[in-house]
C-alpha cells in the first residue's frame, strides 16, 4: 500500500525546519533522505512515524489519513532512531522479546532475527555488557523480527562494521522483495540499488518568524 505526505512543514526547537514537502513511498521502493546535519532528516522521519505532528500538511496511506487511526499507522511501521531502546538489566533476547511481542511477533521470528544480525550466540548477555555495534545490531534486529511494511531508519549503519553493514543491506533488500518499503536517512552511500532520493535542503524554508512584526 502506498504511503505519502503532502505539503508537510515542521517546526523543531522554534525553527521552521522544512516546508511544502511532498513524498510518496510505494511497496518495494526505498526512499533515501539526504541533506546536511540539521536539515531536518530526523524531524521528517519522526513526522512520518507520527511521533511529531507536522505543523501543516498531512500524512496518509492509500486507505485513509494517518490522523484518523494512529494505532493502525503505528502497527504498519517500525522506527529505528539514534536511541537503541535497550534496557541494561534485560538480556539480549528479553530486550528483543519486549518490542517484538508488542508488535505481535512469534518467538521463532525473534530467534531468526537474532541470527540474521549475528547475535545468535549472545542471547543471554545482559544489555549493559554489549558493545555499541552489538547494541545497534540489536535495535536493527527489531526490524527483522517484525512484519511491518514501512521501515523508518535513521542512520542505520553508524558504528557498524563492514559485515554488519552487509547484513543491513541484505535485510533491506529482502524486505523490499517481500513488498515492504523503507525510508532511510543517511549521509553515507549505502550502495542500495534503485532508490529515489529526497534532499531536505530543497524544502528548506525561509525562516518566517511569526514574532517578526512585533515592535
Amino acid at each position, binding site marked *: 500500500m502506498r504511503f505519502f505526505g503532502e505539503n508537510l512543514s515542521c517546526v523543531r526547537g522554534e525553527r521552521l525546519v522544512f516546508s511544502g514537502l511532498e513524498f510518496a513511498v510505494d511497496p518495494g521502493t526505498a526512499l533515501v533522505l539526504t541533506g546536511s546535519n540539521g536539515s531536518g532528516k530526523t524531524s521528517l522521519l519522526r513526522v512520518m512515524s507520527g511521533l511529531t505532528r507536522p505543523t501543516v500538511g498531512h500524512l496518509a496511506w492509500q486507505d485513509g489519513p494517518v490522523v484518523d487511526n494512529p494505532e493502525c499507522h503505528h502497527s504498519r511501521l517500525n522506527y529505528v532512531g539514534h536511541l537503541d531502546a535497550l534496557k541494561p538489566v534485560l538480556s539480549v533476547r528479553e530486550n528483543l522479546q519486549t518490542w517484538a511481542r508488542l508488535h505481535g511477533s512469534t518467538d521463532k521470528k525473534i530467534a531468526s532475527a537474532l541470527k540474521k544480525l549475528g547475535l545468535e550466540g549472545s542471547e543471554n548477555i545482559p544489555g549493559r555488557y554489549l558493545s555499541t555495534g552489538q547494541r545497534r545490531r540489536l535495535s536493527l534486529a527489531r526490524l527483522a523480527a517484525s512484519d511491518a511494511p514501512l521501515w523508518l531508519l535513521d542512520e542505520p549503519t553508524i558504528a557498524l562494521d563492514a559485515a554488519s553493514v552487509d547484513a543491513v543491506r541484505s535485510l533491506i533488500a529482502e524486505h523490499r522483495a517481500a513488498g515492504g518499503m523503507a525510508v532511510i536517512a543517511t549521509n553515507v552511500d549505502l550502495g542500495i540499488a534503485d532508490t529515489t532520493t529526497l534532499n531536505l535542503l530543497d524544502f528548506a524554508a525561509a525562516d518566517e518568524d511569526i*514574532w517578526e512584526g512585533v515592535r
Partner: protein
Amino acid sequence: MIQQYANPARFNRLAATLMPWFAWPAGVLIAVGLYFALFNSPPDYQQGDTVRIMYVHVPSAWMALFVYTSMAISSAVGLIWKHPLAHLSAQAAAPIGACFTFVCLLTGSLWGKPMWGTWWVWDARLTSVLILFFLYLGFMALQNAFDDPARGERSAAILAIIGFINVPIIKFSVDWWNTLHQPASVVKISGPAIHSSMLIPLFVMGVGFTLYFCALLLLRMKTLMLARRARGMSMAQLHQQASE
C-alpha cells in the same frame, strides 16, 4: 504559512490602543475605592476599623481565582487550537495572579491578628488560597523548567487545566476538613454582614483590580512577544553564522 491563525503584530497594535483604556480607569477606580474604603465607610460595630482591610483582602481573593480561571481558559485555547498568543497570555498572567494570591494571604493574616490574636488561621478559605498559591508557583516553575519555551508553555498549560479541575475539589475537601477540626475559639472569616455602604468600595476596588490586571497583562504579553522575537533573531543569526 503559520501566520494565518496568529498574528502577533496585529494583536500588539490592538493591545497598544487598548492599554490606556484599561490603565487610566484602573488608576481612577482604585483611587476612588481607596477613598471610600479608608474614609467614607462606617467602621464595623464589632471589629472597628480593622474591617477596612477587607476592602483589599476580598478583591485580591476574587482576582486570585479570576486570574487562575483566565489562565486555565487561555491554556485550553492554546492547546486545542495551537494558538501561541493564548499560551503567552497564560504565561503573562501567572505572576500577576501569584501576586494577588500573596497579597490576599498577607492581608488575611494582618486581618486575623487583631481579630483572633494569631497571624495565621487554618480557616477553610485561607487554606484553599494557600494551596492556590502553590498551584501558581507550580505553573511558573514548570513553565521555566525547559530549555525550549514552546515545550514549557504546553506542559504548564496542561498543569493549569488539571489545577483548574482540582480547585473546586480542594476547596470542598478543605472546607470539609475545616469543619471537622473547627477549634471552638476561632471565629470563621465569614466577615460582617455586608452593609450597602461597604459594598460600594468593595465593588469599586474589585473592578479597579480587574482593569489593573488587564492593563498589566497586555503589557507583559508585549514583553514576552518581544522576548520571543529577540530569541528568534538571535537563533537565526547563530544559524546564519553557522551556515556561512
